[in-house]
């Protein structure tokens, strides 16, 4: 099972990094590393879509935002226990009580039910957007997905339910097997491990996929859609499935980060975020999961630490241009084929 070896390496690196930061007394870095992990999920999904299947999406931030906002809205509802809606949700066992800053009890949807809803809504939107859009090729697909991202951004900014420019705050932590995903200092280490466990799970699925019959078909679509179709590959179906996979990963990432940060704002839906995800996959070497992971962890960490100041977005745009100019096949390419043939 040589294909899983890099997974073990990543797992050890995650543990090693945490121990090293602990020893160095700089555990506060874990906060940015946790957030970077969630952003990595988006890039892993995009790596499958763009790197392997060869379909460029400039709308991943839209899916991230949909996941985040669905979670945020549902978990911050202020229901009255007497309302019929509240009674219905309560009978389904998916209501949760929380306390606001003034110690008032509030009723909202429980985080796990909200997460499930976030996944379903993201997947459904991806299906509805993907059905017509995924037929488009190259620049046209990029423009259509860019348009989708812009729509999500403007809808978020214009909708009162979504907090408009302020976003949504007061999102409760996500409880998980006695642990908690939240930004509070007490939960910093466990949140870090939950985030990276999620990344490892996504990588596990992605590694499986790219080594499978379907993964080979995806790479053949990248290499030549006509030829792939003529060999029996249902190109439309696989492209759509990968589009939805990428969107759902982005939606999960959005929901988790929203719980971690205790809220979400419209900047998460901006197309500059989408450009960032594309830049990360490009730096990572396009059809290279491990490169994408490395680039995602590193670049997001640098950005989240604020080292780039207000040039944050410009930095990612410059990286993207530079990679396209000098390494159009991606920066971190690996010595291919010889190794891949065995996989």
């Amino acid at each position, binding site marked *: 099972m040589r294909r899983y070896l890099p997974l073990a390496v990543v797992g050890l690196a995650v543990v090693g990094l945490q121990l090293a930061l602990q020893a160095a007394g700089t555990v506060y870095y874990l906060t940015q590393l946790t957030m970077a992990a969630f952003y990595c999920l988006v890039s892993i999904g995009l790596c499958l879509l763009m790197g392997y299947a060869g379909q460029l999406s400039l709308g991943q931030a839209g899916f991230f935002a949909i996941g985040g906002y669905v979670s945020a809205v549902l978990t911050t509802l202020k229901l009255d226990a007497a309302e019929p809606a509240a009674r219905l949700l309560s009978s389904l066992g998916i209501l949760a009580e929380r306390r606001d800053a003034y110690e008032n009890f509030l009723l909202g949807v429980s985080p796990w039910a909200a997460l499930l809803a976030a996944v379903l809504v993201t997947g459904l939107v991806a299906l509805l957007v993907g059905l017509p859009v995924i037929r488009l090729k190259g620049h046209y697909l990029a423009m259509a997905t860019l348009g989708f991202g812009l729509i999500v951004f403007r809808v978020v900014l214009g909708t009162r339910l979504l907090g408009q420019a302020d976003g949504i705050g007061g999102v409760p932590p996500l409880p998980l097997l006695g642990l908690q995903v939240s930004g509070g200092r007490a939960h910093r280490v466990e949140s870090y491990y939950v985030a990276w466990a999620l990344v490892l799970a996504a990588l596990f699925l992605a590694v499986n996929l790219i080594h*499978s*019959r379907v993964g*080979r078909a995806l790479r053949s679509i990248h290499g030549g859609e006509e030829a792939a179709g003529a*060999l029996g590959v249902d190109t439309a179906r696989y492209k759509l499935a990968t589009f939805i996979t990428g969107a759902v990963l982005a939606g999960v990432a959005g929901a988790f980060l929203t719980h971690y940060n205790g809220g979400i704002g419209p900047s998460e839906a901006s197309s500059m975020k989408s450009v960032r995800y594309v830049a990360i996959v490009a730096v990572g070497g396009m059809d290279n999961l491990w490169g994408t992971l490395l680039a995602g962890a590193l670049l997001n960490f640098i950005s989240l630490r604020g080292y780039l100041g207000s040039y944050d977005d410009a930095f990612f745009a410059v990286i993207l241009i530079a990679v396209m100019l000098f390494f159009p096949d991606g920066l971190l390419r690996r010595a*291919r084929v010889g190794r*891949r043939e065995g996989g």
Partner: protein
Amino acid sequence: MSLLQVRDLSHSFGGLQAVSEVDFDVAEGGITALIGPNGAGKTTLFNLISGVLRPQAGSIRLDGRELAGLPAHRIAALGVCRTFQTTALFPRLSALENVMVGRHARTRAGYLAGLLNLPWTWAEERAIRRRALSIMEELGVADCAGEAAASLSFRQQRLVEIARALAAEPTVLLLDEPAAGLNLHETEELGSLIRRIRDQEITVLLVEHDMSLVMDICDRIVVLSYGRKVAEGTPAEIQGNPEVISIYLGGNHV
């Protein structure tokens, strides 16, 4: 008996009538050639049969079953596979992986099975690899299995592309100018390979400009010009057909 029946097939691009009311039959187990000058509509005809293009009018029947209007992947699953004029190997895949993609229509591990690496897919995956390798061995290209498709020689690319199409277990194999770019010796090898393919009970339809190859291996020839069928017959009949001679040599030789 005819395995593939093309009737009244027409297709135009804007104002250009690329294929116009073409009728012909491809006999089961034979080698049929489509010939004609450049722009006669041969490749368009291939694209219509293989589903790369959707015919605007007419019918294409495989063993009585209508293919016109089906998407390419369904047509491949029904047993019509092809190679392309400019070799269309997937450049980022190894030669072996290219041939393994050819097994796609004959295997079934789906998206979820792939994501979860379900154990039942392991045996299938091994079988795909074994079968692909054995076809490459038959065609004498097994030694380049691990190489990137883009780094293969022209001759190897052609053979790997044919191996890839054979991996799909076609009943009808469409070869689009398989000899283009090959030297005399390689073309001879190709001719005997096509015969061997026919001997495996695979019906072959090819587009080819190399007339000595066509006359040598084909049972029947269909001649197209400006999108229309102008002649059909055995190689001997076609060689003596005045209309064909005039198409190839100019109008005054009749």
